């Protein structure tokens, strides 16, 4: 630990190598209140203090005892702006009603992993956030002991107050917060016993709830500064095209239009994540005074594009994926002798599954504000990987990294789309070019036609079983454009003696990337449909077959490296079996079950559907979830419900098709998503009561429901559903 001598109370820095991966307890530099509506915190019933005392980068305490907690990670709808501060508040031992939460800006000195992705915020923040709160509490106790001239261990805290029971004294944190801020940061602090928790596990409402229901300007799309210009871009209609020329003179004459010019972003050498997502780097930029003048100019635009690489279409993708399944053999894992066992006299079933490209369709299309000059950049908006984008901006414009300032707004949805930041780079490039602050907005059509799509996938499953109802061999072979879908060490790896996992990938000029629960969002549905069909062929209840396999993986696992805990997996399945009264029959109701593990959490689901005029209606979905200790039960349920609806929507309707390189669905008139009338009538979610460390929930609720739905549809129609979106087969 090092302590830097302070100049005054508001400008010193403390650094501590606290537990939890090099986590930094830094001093918050003059976090001034401003009149900007986005930065102004919502005080609600809390009174504003005269003076703030910063105890560390995550919290400051007002002289009236009110606490501001800075939420480090970007808020994308996963509710970490509520749940991460809850963890700090718990260990600080403060009454939640005295807490104000503010979004921290990107600051790699003070915070680690300011990322929204992989459902990891809570899991990776669990220890460091608790330590932050506990350390601040300890400093308050030390300051109080000094003030009252008593021993620290004679003091206790409760709900933001310090008590010295022996002398019957008490005071709120605000009284000693100033003195506490001057103390050296203690290296070792004691964390609470979970049985004493008053905030964690209790259910706290979204801290931005009131801002959202009153229409406060909390999203990037709402950001505004005096003198700011508006910009839109027109990318090539098809992937693999270059810009030749356009009616520049005509556009420049249009009312409200300030300029129109070609953009060629230097994408080569970008970080691989951005480069992969950035296959349409050429565009026409239009800058104007208002969004409507830009939308009209886009309609008036005529561009000549030249073709660089041959345009792809959906038939070509289908053929490519089939060829990959038939022609190659890229083995990821092999246990036992699968080829030999498959050649024996056993019953073998083999099935193939497919799913198309998917756009993310965040409710708010891509947007970002940028103000870039020769030596500094200011960027405001919705971004899942702010640090990566800030680094790219610094590199692209040769600006020192410390001069690139990123503020993270609430995101109007992300689902992986806002990891990539290509629109952020475009905004920065435009701002630099026009030498003015600018807000770049994608239209819905721009957003859907210029995505970083979920790859198109196929997978083939094959299993062999004997007359004693034992699965003896299992083969999974996947293919994707681009990137295959197979996780070699996930279930059923470890539960079957002879196992083979293979995966193939084909290149494409279409941008692809992470889409909520990458790979799992396809493979879970396929695998769980196959297991269902396998159970039927073996004359076993589908839950019983899974439990039989988990039993094997738990007691005598095959192979060294299996990514899951078979007992936790079995537990969620048993829980959903009991809660849904699996095995009971209701006339007209058709049920399916599935379970999947991803992003460190376990989810089992039962879906009940009916058929009305040959259209499936989801009556109810039960979810049993093991995500370790639940931080915020109501928020946790909301995440699972959202995953369920996204999964059902994707499985029934989702799909982006290409003709001549061009996406065929570019707005909600042609791209169907689940709406109120199709949504499940009821979703009931149960969490396993456990003291395991908390894990994420943004993604794990989505993948298995696709399998459970497919299995329920089979019960309803007598037909198996192999190809997403299922509505195509239902209608056809």
């Amino acid at each position, binding site marked *: 630990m090092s302590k830097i001598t302070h100049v005054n109370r508001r400008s010193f820095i403390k650094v501590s190598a606290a537990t939890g991966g090099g986590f930094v307890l830094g001093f918050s530099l003059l976090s001034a209140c401003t009149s900007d509506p986005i930065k102004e915190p919502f005080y609600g019933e809390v009174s504003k203090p005269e003076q703030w005392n910063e105890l560390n980068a995550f919290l400051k305490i007002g002289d009236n005892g009110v606490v501001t907690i800075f939420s480090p990670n970007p808020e*994308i*709808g996963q*509710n970490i702006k509520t749940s991460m501060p809850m963890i700090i508040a718990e260990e600080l031992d403060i009454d939640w009603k005295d807490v104000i939460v503010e979004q921290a800006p990107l600051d790699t000195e003070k915070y680690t992993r300011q990322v929204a992705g992989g459902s990891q915020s809570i899991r990776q923040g669990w220890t460091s956030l608790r330590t932050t709160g506990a350390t601040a509490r300890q400093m308050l106790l030390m300051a109080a002991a000094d003030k009252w001239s008593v021993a620290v261990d004679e003091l206790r805290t409760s709900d933001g107050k310090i008590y010295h029971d022996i002398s019957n004294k008490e005071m709120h944190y605000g009284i000693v917060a100033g003195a506490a801020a001057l103390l050296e940061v203690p290296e070792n602090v004691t964390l609470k016993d979970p049985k004493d928790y008053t905030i964690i596990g209790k259910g706290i*409402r*979204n801290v*931005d*709830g009131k801002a*959202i*229901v*009153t*229409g*406060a*300007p909390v*999203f990037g*799309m*709402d950001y*505004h500064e005096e003198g700011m210009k508006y910009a839109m871009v027109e990318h090539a209609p098809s992937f693999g095209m270059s810009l030749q020329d356009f009616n520049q003179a005509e556009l420049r004459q249009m*009312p*409200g239009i300030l300029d129109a010019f070609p953009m060629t972003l230097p994408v080569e050498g970008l970080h691989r994540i951005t480069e992969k997502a950035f296959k349409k780097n050429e565009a026409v930029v239009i800058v104007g005074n*208002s*969004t*409507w*003048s830009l*939308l*009209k100019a886009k309609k008036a635009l005529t561009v000549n594009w030249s073709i660089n690489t041959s345009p792809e279409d959906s038939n070509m993708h289908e053929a490519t994926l089939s060829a990959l399944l038939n022609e190659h053999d890229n083995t990821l894992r092999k246990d036992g002798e699968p080829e030999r066992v498959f050649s024996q006299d056993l019953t073998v079933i083999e099935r193939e599954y497919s799913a198309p490209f998917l756009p993310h*369709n*965040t*409710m*708010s*299309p891509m947007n970002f504000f940028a103000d870039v000059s020769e030596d500094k950049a200011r960027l405001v908006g919705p971004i899942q990987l702010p640090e990566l984008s800030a680094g790219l901006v610094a590199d692209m414009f040769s600006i020192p990294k410390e001069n690139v300032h990123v503020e993270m707004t*609430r*995101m*109007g*949805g992300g*689902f992986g789309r806002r990891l990539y930041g290509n629109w952020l780079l475009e905004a920065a490039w435009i701002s630099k070019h026009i030498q003015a602050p600018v807000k770049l907005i994608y*239209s*819905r059509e721009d957003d859907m036609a210029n995505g970083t799509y979920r790859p198109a996938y196929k997978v083939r499953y094959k299993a062999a079983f004997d007359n004693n109802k034992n699965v003896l061999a299992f083969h999974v072979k996947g293919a994707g454009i681009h990137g295959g879908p197979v996780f070699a060490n996930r279930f059923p790896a470890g539960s079957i003696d002879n196992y083979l996992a293979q995966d193939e990938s084909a290149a494409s000029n279409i941008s692809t990337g992470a889409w909520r629960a990458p790979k799992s969002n396809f493979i879970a549905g396929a695998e769980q449909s196959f297991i269902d069909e396998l159970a039927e062929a073996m004359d076993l209840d589908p839950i019983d077959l899974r439990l039989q396999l988990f039993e094997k993986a738990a007691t005598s696992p095959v192979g060294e490296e299996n990514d899951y805990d078979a007992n936790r997996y079995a537990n969620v399945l048993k829980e959903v079996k009991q809660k849904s009264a699996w095995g009971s029959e209701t006339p007209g109701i058709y049920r399916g079950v599935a379970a999947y593990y991803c992003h460190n959490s376990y989810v089992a689901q039962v879906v009940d559907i009916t058929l009305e005029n040959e259209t499936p209606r989801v009556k109810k979905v039960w979810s049993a979830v093991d995500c370790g200790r639940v931080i915020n039960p*109501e*928020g946790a349920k*909301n*995440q699972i*419900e*959202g*995953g*369920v*609806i*996204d999964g059902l*929507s994707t499985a029934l309707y989702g799909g982006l098709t290409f003709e001549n390189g061009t996406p065929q669905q570019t*707005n*909600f*008139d042609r791209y169907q*998503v*689940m*709406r*109120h*009338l199709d*949504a*499940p*009538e*009821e979703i009931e979610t149960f969490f396993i009561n456990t003291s395991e460390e908390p894990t994420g929930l943004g993604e794990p609720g989505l993948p298995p429901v696709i399998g459970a739905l497919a299995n329920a549809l089979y019960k309803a129609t007598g037909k198996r559903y192999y190809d997403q979106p299922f509505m195509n087969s239902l209608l056809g």
Partner: protein
Amino acid sequence: MAKYSLHINGSLKEVDVAEDTPLLWVLRDHCSLYGTKYGCGIAQCGACTIHLDGVAMRACSIPVSQIGDQKITTIEGLSQDGTHKVQRAWIEHDVAQCGYCQSGQIMSAAALLEDNPSPNDAEIRSAMNGNICRCGTYTRIQAAIRSASNMK
């Protein structure tokens, strides 16, 4: 360009815009009212829902020239302090995930309850079907509307 006097949330606002400008962009770009959201621009998603003389409408598809004297209510004007019963019910049910679609959802719900104070489930789903929520908060929205219909 043409000048219009618009009745927005109980006060008169003068704007000078092209006559085909959709109300959505008048509100957002010229009146600093950002609660009405852009989602699709073709009246398919409901994120821009506002009230025109109490009727839920999609602001992205109404040119400013057609508004005349009709009274515009946006999410900012639904209540003085965020205490309209639909807003309270949204908080009570902790509806929002990302929150982007919710002002449109709330405006559709408020119009529904004005028209039909005790809607049944089918009426709720049907009235709300034009409002997409990509985060999938539909069951919470429907529960919040049921709660709001029981509030004073």
